[in-house]
């Protein structure tokens, strides 16, 4: 089961490490990472496999919320099907 983690906010040191840390703790496998900085805004997208995740999806979202608050960025985790539905015919 694939999900997409998006991180948007002001660039600071250690964002990638923080998000990757949450993934490692919850047994979420990171498959792909892209990141860019557009006019000072940090945008990172991670495609992850949550099949073997040790906690349920709502709890995973809460972990990312807490990590986001700590780093001052907005982190969302969303099932991949949403993007497929909206952007592919």
């Amino acid at each position, binding site marked *: 089961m694939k999900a*997409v983690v998006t991180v948007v906010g002001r660039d600071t040191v250690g964002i990638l490490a923080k998000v990757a840390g949450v993934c490692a703790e919850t047994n979420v496998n990171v498959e792909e990472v*892209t990141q860019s900085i557009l006019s000072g805004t940090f*945008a990172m997208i991670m495609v992850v496999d949550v099949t073997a995740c040790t906690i349920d999806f709502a709890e995973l979202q809460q972990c990312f919320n807490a990590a986001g608050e700590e780093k001052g960025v907005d982190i*969302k985790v969303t*099932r991949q099907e*949403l*993007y497929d*539905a909206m952007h592919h015919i």
Partner: protein
Amino acid sequence: MLDTKDILETIHMISDENLDVRTVTMGISLLDCADEDPHRACEKIYNKITTRAKDLVKVAEEVSTAYGVPIVNKRISVTPIAMLLAPCKNPDPVEFARTLDAAAKKVGVNFVGGFSALVQKGFSAGDRLLIDSIPDALAATDIVCSSINIGSTKAGINMDAVALMGPIVRRAAEITAQRNCIGPAKLVVFCNAPEDNPFMAGAFHGPGEPDCVIHVGVSGPGAVRAALAKQSAGMDLGEVAELVKRTAFKITRMGQLVGNLVSERLGVPFGIVDLSLAPTPAIGDSVANVLEEMGLESCGCCGTTAALALLNDAVKKGGVMASNFVGGLSGAFIPVSEDAGMIAAAQCGSLSIEKLEAMTAVCSVGIDMVILPGDTPAEVISALIADEAAIGMVNSKTTAVRVIPAIGKQVGDTLDFGGLLGWGPVMQINRFSPAKFIGRGGRIPAPLQSLKN
């Protein structure tokens, strides 16, 4: 393959442009709850709703969390209650309304629609009883919505019902005057009412629908406005329509996905996606602002009807491609008190009731959430209903009236309902009397379907 741009666009639409699924509505047939004994009928209704919709809110919230899509409302629509009053001996319709209210609160939804009657061609057993009880039923309950279909393209307009509904709307306002006249905000008078509409206050579960079904109403005026703001500079109107279509496609695909998931997880068949641009009082989430983004100084000025026609059509064209079943009201809603741009336009004098009436000829519904002076005579309200019904009947479209006489208030005052129902200014309405016309009663015959000019 996922594209970064697409992902960020979706996140942006949800986080900053108020994109959401406005409602997941479970339609429940109550036909098998009919009983001669009204108390027994109410017991069956309560049991059926609380059984069928037991997991609706929980499942909708699970889907919302997993897919990051806000689902603002979870609602229930039921078989028009007049049909269940018909076989009862001495029923009290308010008891039925209280039953709906209690069942809906038990399962945690925020509205239940279906305190309704379909009287486009005349009254049958139960219809008059239900209509007469509407003000009391709406005052005695919190989340029950009522709707009456008084006309259709096939049947014409039941002017006896129209004459009844003006006083009912007034009375509903009078007995809830202490609660910001909330009664009539939960009451819609329709022509050509759709039987699968997921939006309140007009939702009911038509007799042709299956036993239980999931409908979805999408939203997204904020996303359409933002797309126009970012990309429409220099575009001609054909290109603007194309841009609206593309955005509506994405919005609708999201609704279809959510509908499929909720229906699958509940084991209930999927009904339709209602392709509606439904505004909220939140800044930027406004249909009026979409029209203004196309180049109007203020919604209501000349050009508004044309801009709305373009918007309404493009939303449908984009949405139809994105969904396998489309239904409900589908189009752009133009409620005044629920749309910050409409409120501003009404306050600055740009938007009048007459212009709103013209707009309803090309939009998805009608004169919606319009606040009238508190002393507006009942026959004026009836005549406004007749005018709207005539537009719907002749143009083979749904039209509706949901107006709120603000008891004790005049033009220049405001009325605040709070929440999604919003607030708005009391609007000026023509005071010349249609009393004799309304007093004639009878039925306006169904219109010719050829020689269209």
